């Protein structure tokens, strides 16, 4: 049974308060950060005093304050990161993998791909942990066909606030399982999980690219053809206005067979190289990424894309994780940091999508390429984000004047058509909108009440939004 050794157990002395923030580098808070180095230590890391509670943290790739706990305890799981690829019938489509919650998709891929396997779902970065993937019920470019991460989980071990460990799954206390799926770590500490990984024909993808002149065009392309591709996402230029409003580059693909990949990579169909190429400088002056430089970047990027290209062979990092090539790119936004705003609205509200894209373009607010995707149906998680419809995600520097009121207005549009924003990305939504965005919030709260009546599991996100 092939398995990986855990990461070397470096015992790090931690000061009593460490400042943590999310990927957007906004609103940090101080906490007693514990870094267990073994599964036993992880289980013992629950504090004896719960003055301000505890939350688990993976690789800190959520944008806002989900993996922070001001004045309380934060358990960083990334030193407990072993996993096992289970033996399987070679004719089965999927293979079971059991991984510690701290294992990253990055490390999983280094082990899985050479064996002809892939993760069921990957976000736009491979630097997320299995725990984070479950707690945010992450989605990827295959959501329209395969759903989100927790659709592929067989079972998981959860440590509850009282210290006990339970096993849950879709068929095993399914209520608690689905409350944990997208539950932002608030039902307990996920210790490990078993999930199904799909087989792949090679480490390469066959990719089709289409340049779309505007929003209508890209939506049409996706509506007509997404079902033909395993993976699909569009990059959209939200700074383009007028006739160019919503211009996009749509890339869609599937894994290549060994034969298709051979001309590019040679005999071994499963070679996998994923490295960070460069680092962003550790300190960036404010305003380097300004309206003009980003506008110029977006323009260049759009012009560079082919109008239409078919059957291009691309590697996993190029197709799935282009941003991972620059380590620490989140620092380039300067001291004020940045935020991501991501929402989903039903397909029948496409006109609202147009209104929102229009408003953002008109506002002149600086935004790098945003991501547009069509989701398939959601799952049973009351706080799971994905739901059938359009999802749009954009990064915005926080310093922009009038940004707060603009996003508040856009939130209202989203809520107005029964949409919601993604908690793993949020750092600013009005708390009173959450029950409208997540109408099953009370159901989720009942489960939380059952497993953590004293609210020992606590995060800044939970405090801010009054979850």
């Amino acid at each position, binding site marked *: 049974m092939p398995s990986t050794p855990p990461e070397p157990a470096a015992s790090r002395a931690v000061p009593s308060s460490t400042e943590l923030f999310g990927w957007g580098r906004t609103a940090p808070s*101080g906490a007693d950060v514990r870094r267990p180095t073994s599964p036993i230590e992880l289980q013992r890391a629950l504090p004896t005093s719960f003055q301000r509670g505890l939350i688990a943290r993976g690789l800190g790739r959520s944008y806002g304050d989900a993996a922070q706990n*001001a*004045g309380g305890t934060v358990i960083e799981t990334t030193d407990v990161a072993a996993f096992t690829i289970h033996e399987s019938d070679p004719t089965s489509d999927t293979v079971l993998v059991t991984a510690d919650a701290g294992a990253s998709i990055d490390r999983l891929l280094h082990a899985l791909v050479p064996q002809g396997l892939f993760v069921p779902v990957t976000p736009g970065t491979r630097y997320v942990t299995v725990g984070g993937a479950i707690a945010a019920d992450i989605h990827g470019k295959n959501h329209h066909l395969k759903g989100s991460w927790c659709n592929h989980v067989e079972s998981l071990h959860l440590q509850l606030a009282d210290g006990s460990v339970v096993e849950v799954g879709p068929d095993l206390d399914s209520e608690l399982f689905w409350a944990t799926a997208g539950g932002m770590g608030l039902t307990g500490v996920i210790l490990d999980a078993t999930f199904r990984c799909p087989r792949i024909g090679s480490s390469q993808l066959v990719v089709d690219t289409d340049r779309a002149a505007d929003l209508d065009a890209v939506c049409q392309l996706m509506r007509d053809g997404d079902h033909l591709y395993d993976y699909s996402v569009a990059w959209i230029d939200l700074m383009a206005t007028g006739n160019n409003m919503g211009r996009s580059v749509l890339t869609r693909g599937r894994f290549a067979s060994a034969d298709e990949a051979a001309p590019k990579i040679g005999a071994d169909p499963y070679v996998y190289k994923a490295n960070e190429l460069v680092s962003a400088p550790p300190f960036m002056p404010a305003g380097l990424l300004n309206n003009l430089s980003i506008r110029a970047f977006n323009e260049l990027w759009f012009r560079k894309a082919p109008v239409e290209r078919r059957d291009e062979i691309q590697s996993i990092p190029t197709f799935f994780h282009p941003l991972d090539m620059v380590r620490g790119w989140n620092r380039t936004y300067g*001291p*004020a940091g940045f935020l991501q705003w991501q929402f989903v609205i039903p397909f029948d509200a496409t006109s609202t999508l147009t209104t929102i894209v229009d408003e953002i373009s008109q506002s002149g607010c600086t935004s790098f390429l945003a991501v547009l995707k069509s989701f398939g149906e959601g799952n049973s998680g009351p706080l799971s984000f994905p739901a059938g419809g359009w999802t749009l995600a954009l990064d915005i520097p926080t310093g922009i004047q009038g*940004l707060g009121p603009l996003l508040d207005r856009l939130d209202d549009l989203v809520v107005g058509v029964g949409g919601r924003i993604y908690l793993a990305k949020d*750092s600013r939504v009005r708390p009173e909108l959450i029950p409208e965005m997540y109408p099953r919030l009370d159901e989720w709260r009942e489960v939380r009440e059952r497993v953590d009546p004293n609210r020992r599991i606590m995060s800044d996100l939970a405090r801010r939004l009054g979850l």
Partner: protein
Amino acid sequence: MRDALGSVQSVLVLGGNSEIAIAIVDRLVASRCKKVVLGVRSPASATTTLNRLRSAGVDADTIVFDALDHASHAQVIDAAAERIGDLDMVILAFGVLGEQSEFNASPVAAAEAARVNFVGAVSSGLAAAAKLRTQGHGTILAITSVAGVRARADNFVYGSTKAGMDAFAQGLGDSLIGSGARCVVVRPGFVHTRMTEGMKPAPFATTPDKIADAVINGLQKNKEIIWAPPIMSILFTVLRHLPRPIWRKISAG
């Protein structure tokens, strides 16, 4: 909690009748702030503000706070936290301007002003910092003054108390690094409020609303020092470096 755009959900104002502070609170309340405690010497004096906030749906209250009663400051902070939970922001807004000629005639009155502006800021600032440290988050907003950047012959007692408070607040901010809490310094120029009523306005004199706008903008941009109006930053960078004879002439107005 503070959000990514610098909005907070609760605030304690020490010097709760300050016109500048009230303008700031109005903006906080218009964004995410739902809980306000006004620390004032006499609760009755804050009734109008309190009623206005409450009718806007804010959970607002007063608490007795006297900058001169240094021994009480830790209790004031605790009581406020008891009332509204986590203190996302504590504004140090109290202060007295005084009259230099009076201070010249009465060193005791001058010392009293220093006890309000500087000593009061030290004791309440440290008490607030201790609370925010335990919370692991929160912002102390210390309103100092451009008068503290360079003392003038005609108000150097006030100027020096503000200089002391400014240095204290900067050091406090540095000492909080790593705790999740922080201290942001606000340096207003001349503002038309009760404090400056009847005085000859200095160049770039402005209103509490304008100051509050600059503060909100600075908080959003995660500034450690907020000059208000922003032009003060440039103006005082120059003034600070003028040779003293020239400064004496200019500042004598």
